[in-house]
């Protein structure tokens, strides 16, 4: 009997046992779809978090006040009693002191109520310098950003982030309008482009004013000389650690600190946030992968069961076919064809379902679902292999029995 005939016989057997074939295909299908979905969700979360952190700005270092050490707890103060000053920022901007730092943006911030006509909106007001837009990797959608002139002159101007502009002015163009903060009227000179769909939501809800305006006219108090954060941008990702060291050395010098344990500032790199987040999401992916592997295993055991039962109940058929002149090889091939047809159709349908459900789920929960080719292939291989092993092995054993022995089996 040639291969073509064998394939026809196998297909005939698959077709004539619809329920059994259907269940086998279903088992494989669900296992594979589950793997694709769960791994996809984990990878999606990982990708989203990476993008969110990247959207903070590229090659970013954030200098914050205070330092947490085991001996002294949190040194210095967060917020009002910040240990960082504009002088620190100016020093770090020096190409001589810190050649690997490309741009520096000191910032103060506070939650304030913004009023524009009848609209009222509470958001974060950030006082900073023109470099902020570069360091934080933002772009201006309309109007312009702050200039050095604005900072020197304490100009009463504000740049709104997209959501803030939307909340205050709706679809109207915000540029040229006036916003009142703490009784000070500020004229809107620009609106920022959205930070991107994956960014943290409040990146798009803030109002940027010149550092001097914030210090002198809006916030007052300690913020007159001190700043809460200094954003640094390294020349490139390769010089990030050099920039880190230069900043640490210069700040220690300026603050008269001799031992690193006494530092009254903390430098966080975007990379370190990323690493922490990545390791967290990797744990998530491993967890989801584990769940997926278990679902694949359960599906596999299901397929194994159906295959074993179906072959066992067909040992009589194998005996009869042998009695009519089938060689063990032909029997093996027939069952190989059957198991392959079931395995492959289950596999293909499972991949289809996994991908479609993944895309659907991504829409539904507005979170990316990443289809991993590796997980897909792995799941496919495992499911098909289980089908083949448990479909073909018992059949090939039965094919070695004397025909009458096989015919008599229950």
């Amino acid at each position, binding site marked *: *009997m040639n291969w073509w*005939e064998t394939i026809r*016989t196998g297909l005939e057997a698959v077709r004539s046992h619809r329920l059994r074939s259907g269940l086998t295909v279903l088992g494989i299908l669900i296992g594979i779809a589950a793997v694709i979905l769960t791994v996809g969700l984990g990878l999606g979360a990982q990708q989203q978090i990476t993008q969110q952190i990247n959207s903070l700005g590229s090659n970013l270092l954030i200098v914050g006040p205070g330092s947490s050490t085991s001996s002294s707890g949190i040194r210095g103060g967060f917020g009002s009693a910040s240990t960082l000053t504009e002088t620190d920022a100016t020093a770090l901007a020096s190409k001589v002191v810190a050649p690997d730092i490309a741009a520096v943006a000191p910032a103060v911030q506070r939650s304030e109520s913004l009023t524009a006509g009848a609209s009222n909106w509470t958001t974060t007001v950030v006082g900073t310098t023109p470099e902020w837009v570069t360091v934080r990797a933002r772009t201006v959608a309309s109007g312009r950003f702050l200039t050095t002139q604005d900072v020197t002159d304490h100009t009463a101007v504000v740049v709104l982030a997209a959501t803030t502009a939307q909340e205050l002015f709706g679809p109207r163009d915000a540029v040229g309008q006036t916003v009142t903060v703490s009784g000070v009227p500020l004229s809107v000179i620009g609106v920022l482009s959205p930070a991107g769909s994956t960014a943290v939501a409040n990146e798009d809800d803030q109002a940027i004013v010149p550092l001097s305006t914030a210090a002198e006219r809006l916030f007052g108090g300690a913020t007159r000389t001190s700043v809460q954060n200094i954003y640094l941008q390294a020349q490139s990702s390769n010089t990030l650690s050099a920039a880190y060291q230069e900043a640490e050395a210069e700040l220690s010098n300026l603050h008269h600190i001799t031992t690193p344990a006494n530092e009254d500032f903390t430098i966080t790199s975007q990379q370190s946030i990323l690493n922490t987040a990545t390791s967290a999401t990797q744990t998530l992916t491993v967890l989801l992968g584990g769940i997926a592997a278990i679902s694949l295993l359960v599906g596999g055991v299901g397929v194994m069961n159906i295959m074993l039962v179906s072959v066992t109940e067909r040992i009589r058929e194998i005996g009869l*076919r*042998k*009695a009519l*002149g089938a060689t063990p090889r*032909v029997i093996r091939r027939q069952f190989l064809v059957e198991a392959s047809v079931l395995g492959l159709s289950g596999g293909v349908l499972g991949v289809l379902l996994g991908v479609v459900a993944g895309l659907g789920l991504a829409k539904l929960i507005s979170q990316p679902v990443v289809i991993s080719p590796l997980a897909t292939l792995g799941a496919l291989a495992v499911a098909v292999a289980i089908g083949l092993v448990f479909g073909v092995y018992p059949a090939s054993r039965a094919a*070695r029995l004397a025909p009458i022995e096989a015919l008599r089996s229950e």
Partner: protein
Amino acid sequence: MTTDLFPTLQFPLLELRDVSKTYRSGSIQVQALREACIAIREGEFVAITGPSGSGKSTLMHVLGCLDSPTSGAYRLAGQDVSTMSEEELADVRNRQIGFVFQQFNLLPSLTAGRNVELPLCYAGVPRAERSARAREALARVGLAHRVEHRPGELSGGQQQRVAIARALVTDPALILADEPTGNLDSASTTDVLNLLAELHTAGRTIVLITHEADVAAAAARTVHTLDGAIFDDTGVHQGSTHRA
């Protein structure tokens, strides 16, 4: 002892010498065949009778290469079956032997036509020829109108006739039939016996198991089995060690 038993030129097609078959289920042993000896020449029509459980079916299974004896030798067309490979055995079953089982053994998922075609599939006969020959064989057993029916949709007697058609379809030299008329009415029995007689006239060797004396009478030679032994062989050549 049997070496000079066949002085004639005619070669025995089937030759059993001291064949025993013992079934073991747990500690219980059942000896279905006890040192059975029989020789059947080409073109013979032999009926095998005997009480239920006397080993008739077991004998047929050994003759049809469906089971191997526990001891003793079986030569088919001069060749020792125990030395034949799986492939050779499959080929013998496929081309030389047509088997009618006591329990029909039809595949329930296939139509009568496809069931009859099965041996032809394994013989590598092209599809068109296969279905033509299957229809022809079914027509010979009077089931031309049931080609597309599945075994579950047929009566016991009709299923038996499908099984007979399947045994005929390859045009084998040897037909082994285990109670082929067991489920048939007298008219159908006559039809089947006529069919077997026709095949016998055409030169086929036929071994037929039956309980009915008038069916056995259709054969030229009758062999009896009792308690696993073959005896009272009315043919020219007797081969039993259990001659009482």
